[in-house]
């Protein structure tokens, strides 16, 4: 057994594992069409190689800084693996004045061990403000959120750019994906009203195609366009995207006819009517669940601290000048 462990602890195997890992990184590069085993297999080999070295190599154990660094590498690999299993990543678009709904979240990545708690998250989207410093160069993003606290109390918080909303362990980051939405009310012949919103493509990125289709409750579809006035960015000056710049009218096309609606106006359509309430802004959020993040950071920093300790112990004691004293007095090539 010891002989096997000694073979497993070989530094040559370490090198093979590291070269394998580098090759795996080149092949994988986050491309999901390749299996993660390109990266995971060399890491597993390195992990066993390191564990065997810790058990069989007393010199390794007597260098605490170096040992700490390598143990931290092992822990980072373990934490990253667990992170893959429990992590969650998704996106959601929320219209101003409406509440977050977990069933609207689009799942991008969900670890097999992830138990969703998104239904515990409660907040309502408030005002949005995106500053543009020069034409289409985006500056700061600010999004107001209303969070229910103690019964009856609501807290107002501001998120944006580097500041996410953290709720039930999830982090909600604002993104560059944002735009306008039309709030519409459908009334059937019996007067039963149903209000919903339709989001237009991200603005100003897609300012040339601010249209979308709405499938009415009776199954018919409506083509709706937002009538956007030329914005300040066309002049390449600083401007702000917020509620005040929200356009006021939409164009509705149905069955070959089209009509422009201002807020509060309605058109009759077979089986009922559509009323345009108002245009609002929506914000796209990126949702991530990475509960091990602080542990990864602490472990990584501890590892580097261990390495620094090791190097300091190895080289710090010998003054570099003394080590090279012979050079300064030596003849040169002159």
């Amino acid at each position: 057994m010891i002989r096997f462990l000694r073979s497993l602890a070989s530094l040559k195997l370490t090198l093979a594992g590291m070269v394998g890992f580098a090759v795996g990184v080149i092949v994988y590069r986050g491309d999901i069409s390749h299996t993660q085993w390109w990266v995971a297999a060399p890491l597993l080999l390195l992990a066993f190689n390191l564990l065997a070295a810790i058990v069989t190599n007393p010199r390794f154990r007597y260098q605490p800084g170096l040992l700490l660094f390598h143990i931290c590498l092992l822990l980072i690999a373990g934490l990253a693996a667990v992170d893959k299993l429990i992590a969650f990543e998704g996106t959601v678009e929320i219209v101003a004045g409406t509440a977050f709904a977990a069933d609207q979240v689009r799942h991008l990545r969900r670890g097999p061990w992830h138990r969703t708690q998104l239904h515990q998250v409660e907040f309502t989207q408030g005002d949005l403000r995106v500053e543009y410093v020069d034409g289409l160069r985006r500056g700061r993003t600010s999004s107001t959120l209303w969070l229910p606290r103690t019964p009856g109390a609501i807290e107002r918080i501001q998120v944006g750019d580097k500041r996410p909303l953290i709720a039930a362990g999830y982090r909600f980051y604002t993104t560059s994906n944002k735009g306008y939405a039309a709030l519409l009310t459908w009334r059937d012949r019996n007067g039963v009203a149903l209000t919903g919103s339709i989001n237009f493509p991200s603005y100003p990125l897609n300012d040339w195609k601010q249209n979308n289709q709405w499938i009415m409750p009776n199954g018919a579809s409506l083509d709706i366009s937002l009538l956007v006035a030329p914005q300040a960015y066309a002049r390449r000056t600083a401007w702000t995207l917020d509620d005040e710049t929200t356009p006021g009218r939409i164009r509705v096309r149905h069955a070959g006819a089209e009509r422009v609606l201002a807020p509060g106006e309605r058109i009759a359509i077979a089986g009922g009517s559509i009323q345009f309430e108002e245009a609002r802004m929506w914000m796209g959020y990126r949702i991530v669940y990475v509960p091990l993040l602080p542990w990864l950071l602490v472990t990584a920093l501890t590892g580097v601290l261990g390495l620094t300790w090791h190097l300091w112990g190895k080289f710090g004691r010998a003054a570099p000048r003394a080590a090279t004293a012979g050079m300064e007095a030596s003849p040169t090539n002159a």
Partner: protein
Amino acid sequence: MPEMTIMQVTVTLLAAGTLYSLLGVWGVLHHEYERHALLLLGFVTALLAVAIALRWIRIGHGPFVTMFEILLSNVFSIGLVYLVAALWVPAVRHGIATVYCILLVLAAWALAAPTTETPLPPTYHNAWLWAHVTVGKLFLGVCVAAVGLATILLLRLRHSNWWCREDNVVAADRAVWRLMMLAFVFHSLMLIAGAAWAQDAWGRYWAWDPLETWSLLTWCALAITLHLRVTFSRLPQAAGWSLVIGVFGLAFLTFFGVPFVSVAPHKGAM
């Protein structure tokens, strides 16, 4: 634009310094050429500090965004780190000719780069960015100091009349490896700070974007090089020095190649 004028002066001085130190290495000059070349480098670094300060005051943010700014700040930081290393470890001074060559390439490139003033993206307003950039520059500076020495040591194999005493080579070789170990520490810190910044800026600490992937490969190459030295005690010195130069080549590509051909967020795209 004053910093452009300073950059032109810098390139001229760096070209003169390169020529002077190459003549020194060739054995044409008095052995004190290293001291003179260091003094000139100190002057150039001070000039670059003025250029960075002037631009910073005018546009309101540090040299983090455009290619011109990144090259300008790197010529400054590499020069400064090299000067400190040369004062701390005298053996490092022997590599000054290579360092001048590298700085000249970067400075000439900066002259060719557009000097457009770009506002700081919102994701750059972050303390982790400062940590990431600082340790990144320390890594590159230390790496350049090591590669300068490794190149001269390799050339010495062909021209053995340089540095006649063998203990010069022993001390220089030792300095190369110590600097590479220090570079490994700084590179590790750069990856950590970069991941923390990415988490704040884009909501993910690692996304395999081209710059992240290539910096991880540089870290691997550095780790492999250091392990090779430990594993094979009879590793020929020339092979070790060549590996050091190879690691620097990879780091150079990562720092100055990938960010400008990739459309990943690292480019600062908004």
